[in-house]
């Protein structure tokens, strides 16, 4: 019986050698495109900012599927948007060249793990600054004032959230906090809930409601798609977007904040804002 499993072991050994050879080939391919990651082990004591400068490239986590902020163009393969232009401007202010940048796709679920794994230097991906997230990452100053807002057909009597009263039909998306927010602010209005943004926007176009409410970043995207609609009034919730960096990288946060401040004072920020959002930022 001992002979039995010794000979089987030998056979399996041969097979596993083959497997290992196959695996080796596979991961070899993988590493080729993997090691362009931001990382490298950060040397003890060296700050991330020094590392970025010596690497001479800024690696930024951005969205690839968010209209206006970070959207990959299938034709050119380029990622474009407000977040991307901010990232490029920061590369220019830190490294002197807006092309010294690598963009990596992140989602709401992967962005913090990727930041903590040193795969990206910073997150510029429609990320709202919250107290909860402040415990995990460090944020820059606000770079976009996001918040819940209203979309109406051009010429609508509704010009701000005060105009949403009883008799106003408000369209919103199910399960989102935006439903609770509008019910709190305008308790008399009728709220119609839809499964997704597309359905809600179609309903607004079909005249099933007077006003569509959700985050302004999404509403601006709808506005860009159909010029007959416009975003009105100030955001009535406060969900500012910030640039997230790994905790404790004070020098990098300062460099980013300096870069943002310079963008705002030079007017370049307004140019980028108008380019993507379609109107000037409110004061």
């Amino acid at each position, binding site marked *: 019986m001992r002979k039995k499993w010794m000979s089987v072991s030998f056979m399996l050994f041969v097979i596993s050698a083959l497997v290992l050879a196959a695996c080796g080939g596979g991961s070899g391919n993988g590493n080729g495109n993997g090691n362009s990651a931001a990382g490298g082990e950060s040397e003890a004591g060296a700050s991330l900012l020094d590392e970025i400068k010596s690497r001479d490239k800024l690696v930024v986590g951005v969205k690839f599927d968010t209209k206006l902020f970070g*959207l990959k163009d*299938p034709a050119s393969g380029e990622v474009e948007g407000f977040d991307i232009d901010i990232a490029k401007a920061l590369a220019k202010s830190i490294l002197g060249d807006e092309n010294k940048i690598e963009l990596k796709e992140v989602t709401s679920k992967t962005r913090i*793990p990727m930041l903590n794994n040193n795969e990206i230097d910073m997150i510029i991906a429609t990320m709202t600054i919250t107290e909860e997230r402040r415990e995990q990452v460090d944020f820059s100053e606000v770079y976009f004032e996001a918040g819940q807002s209203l979309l109406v057909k051009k010429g609508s009597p509704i010009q701000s959230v005060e105009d949403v009263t009883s008799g106003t039909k408000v369209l919103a998306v199910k399960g989102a906090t935006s439903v609770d927010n509008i019910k709190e602010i305008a308790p008399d209005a009728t709220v119609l809930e839809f499964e997704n943004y597309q359905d809600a926007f179609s309903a607004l176009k079909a005249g099933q409601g007077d006003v569509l409410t959700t985050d302004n970043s999404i509403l601006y995207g709808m506005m860009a798609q159909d010029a007959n609609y416009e975003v009105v009034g100030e955001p009535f919730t406060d969900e500012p977007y910030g640039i997230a960096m790994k905790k404790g990288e004070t020098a990098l946060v300062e460099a980013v904040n300096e870069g943002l401040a310079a963008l705002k004072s030079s007017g370049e920020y307004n140019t980028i804002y108008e380019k993507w959002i379609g109107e000037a930022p409110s004061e």
Partner: protein
Amino acid sequence: MDFAGALSPDNLRFILEGFYVTLKVAFISIVLSFVLGCLVGTIRYAKIPILAPVLGVIVEILRNLPLLLIIFFTRFALPDIGIKLDVVTSAIVALTLFEGAIISEIVRSGLNSVNKGQIEASRSSGLGYTQTLWHIVMPQGLRRMVPPLVSQFIALLKDTSLAVVISLPELMNHSKIVIAQSYDFVIPVLMVVALLYFSVNYALSLIARRLEAKFV
């Protein structure tokens, strides 16, 4: 709905690029998980001391976890213990481990289905244990495994879509990006995606049916 806009040549090419990644990741994972599954299934069938029970525990763990969790694990937990994998490799590793565990059970049950009388006959004819396994048990067992194996490969191909959570640039990821271009693109793009998944999986089913007719 905007079929012409959604399925413009550029968008179609972009979707097909994603489909190529899906097929590539699925193909590599199918080959690796099949080899891994055969290896583990045979070890457990032959009840090799120490190795078999240890692998048994690992198989049970992998088989009973959601694939999504394993994908997240290979992408974001392995770096913590010093193993850095890029997106493609971590998707392949996760799929190989998970599907390999399931395939090992298919292999084990296929081998077990071979009548014990066959083994006794072979041994008493003077064949060694390995020879018996190789010439008597495996050929018969493998034939019976063909239908469940192919359906597992089809499942694997569809499971690659779960790697969308780690932003693997595969079919779902690319279709998501095309859909994000316009609210009118959702239905046309999803129809194309469904057609792509269906045609390749249906082709696999047809191949399985022919193999089945030939072998079983």
